[in-house]
């Protein structure tokens, strides 16, 4: 796989980027850079403004205000040149169902200005990458969901892009298909590609992203590496339990000893603690049912809840 590296200048420089639809503000003054060679994740629930931000980047949504420079070029005015350096993998597969697998790749290469012979070459290279060599002449509608997704990813790479934009690349896929796709994205990452991806999956963000922008209600609420983000805001561990009949006195006592409060949701309670083992020993000593209690590391999901007061899937 060839993916161009773009030197040292940020490939994306967004300053106060805003998109309003009437009185609704989809993206509210976001500023960020995408550095060459990094995998940047946009994390947030549905409606956080991730897709709109990405659409502005790939030049199909004009910003209401703010400045956007891509590859050193002015967004909008140089849209055609900017799009020439991009690969886009949309959230919903929009493959051309009237063309076969190989022709989907060939056509996109032609749209990017490739000559007929170069387009054929590129299509064959990407069929290998997507492991679809055996399906070259097959109609797109006959592919499985996972194959379509791999083809959509491959299609995003026809222009040897300097930046690949992936909008929720694995949403709604089977677990084994997600893993295949992650492997493909890790292959790109190892090759030095610059990727900007949105997701609302924690595991995906932790596995693939070098850096995260956490978005909520059109704003960026936090920024950093997955580990740093968690460490900066939360204790290392979560003690979690399902309690019977509101018998959460041991957890109340534990919470009083640490900075963080007891959090209740339904019959579940959890307390953030620095020393997971000691906390567990303490509550078990207080007679809590060991089968219903466990310690886990703090996750991005916890961070998200902590930062926004609501969960990621809401």
């Amino acid at each position, binding site marked *: 796989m060839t993916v161009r590296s773009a030197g040292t200048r940020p490939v994306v420089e967004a300053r106060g980027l805003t998109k309003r639809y009437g009185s609704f503000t989809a993206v509210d003054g976001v500023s960020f850079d995408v550095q060459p060679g990094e995998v940047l994740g946009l994390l947030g629930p549905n409606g956080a403004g991730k897709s709109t931000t990405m659409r502005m980047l790939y030049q199909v949504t004009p910003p209401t205000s703010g400045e956007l420079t891509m590859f050193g070029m002015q967004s909008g005015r140089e849209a*055609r040149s900017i799009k*020439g350096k991009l690969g886009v993998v949309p959230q919903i597969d*929009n493959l*051309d169902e009237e063309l076969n697998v190989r022709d989907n790749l060939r056509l996109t290469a032609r749209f990017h200005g490739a000559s007929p012979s170069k387009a054929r070459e590129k299509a064959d290279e990407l069929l290998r990458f997507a492991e679809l060599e055996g399906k070259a002449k097959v109609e797109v509608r006959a592919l499985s969901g996972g194959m379509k997704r791999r083809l959509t990813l491959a299609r995003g790479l026809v222009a040897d892009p300097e930046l690949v934009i992936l909008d929720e690349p694995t949403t709604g896929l089977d677990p084994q298909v997600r893993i295949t796709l992650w492997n493909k994205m890790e292959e790109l990452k190892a090759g030095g590609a610059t990727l900007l991806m949105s997701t609302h999956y924690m595991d995906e963000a932790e596995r693939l992203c070098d850096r995260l922008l956490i978005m909520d209600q059109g704003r960026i609420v936090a920024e950093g590496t997955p580990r740093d983000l968690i460490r900066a805001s939360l204790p290392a561990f979560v003690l979690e339990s399902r309690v019977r009949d509101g018998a959460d006195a041991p957890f109340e006592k534990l919470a009083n000893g640490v900075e963080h409060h007891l959090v209740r949701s339904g019959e579940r309670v959890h307390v953030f603690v620095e020393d997971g083992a000691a906390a567990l020993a303490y509550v078990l000593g207080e007679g809590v049912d060991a089968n219903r209690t466990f310690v886990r590391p703090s996750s991005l999901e916890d961070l998200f809840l902590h930062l926004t007061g609501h969960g990621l899937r809401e």
Partner: protein
Amino acid sequence: MTGHLASIGRVWLRNAWVYRDRWFYGLLPNFFEPVFYLLGLGLGVGYYVSTGGAFDGSYLSFIIPGLIAVSAMNGASFETTYNVFVKLHFGRIYDATIATPVGIEDVTIGEALWAVTRAVIYGGVFLLVTLAFGTTLDARFFAVIPALALVGFAFAALGLAFTSVVPTIDLFSYYFTLFLTPSFLFSDVFFPVAESFPPALATFASYTPLYRSVQLVRGIMQGDAPTLFLDIAYLTLFGSILLAFAVWRMRARMVR
């Protein structure tokens, strides 16, 4: 500008690739349709039609140019209504296209260009079939082909303009039933409107695009085209204005 021309060409190419695999099945009805029309209306109805009107010669030779123009109109109309709507809303392939250096204006103009191609194929097949019904193979025969492209352009632009504003596919039946069907019946294809209709209605009919298309094709085929320049100017202007409108609406729809 060269970027735009290349992009428009590639949108056209996509359609040509799809057509390449299907042309045989698509084209077959194109051969039968004119045969049925020419037999049923030309020879059948024509047998009963006295030649007392303003046209000389047979009824068959009167309706041939009009039916060729209608054929080009239908080719461009189907392509720019149902086919474009499906690509726009169900296949969402334009979303993928405009994420590449190809812009929505290139997509719209490329689709118009493809519809012109289909109009020339449809109308051209009809023209070819008329050779078996008395049309002679001369310079006038070949001069019809660019005229078909112009007719196709006008109706491609109109179809795209309509498609760019309709919210649901059901509304196309209005376009076909309330616009194309009356055009087909009242645009000098089957009878001279000026001789049969009240003057106000005849004048109205003479300003419709199919009427001008029929005059253009008939003028060329009969070698006597008093309104040739009017017809060409009308169809060029009509198509250009509506194509500009379609580009504007498609942009509003896709770039938001």
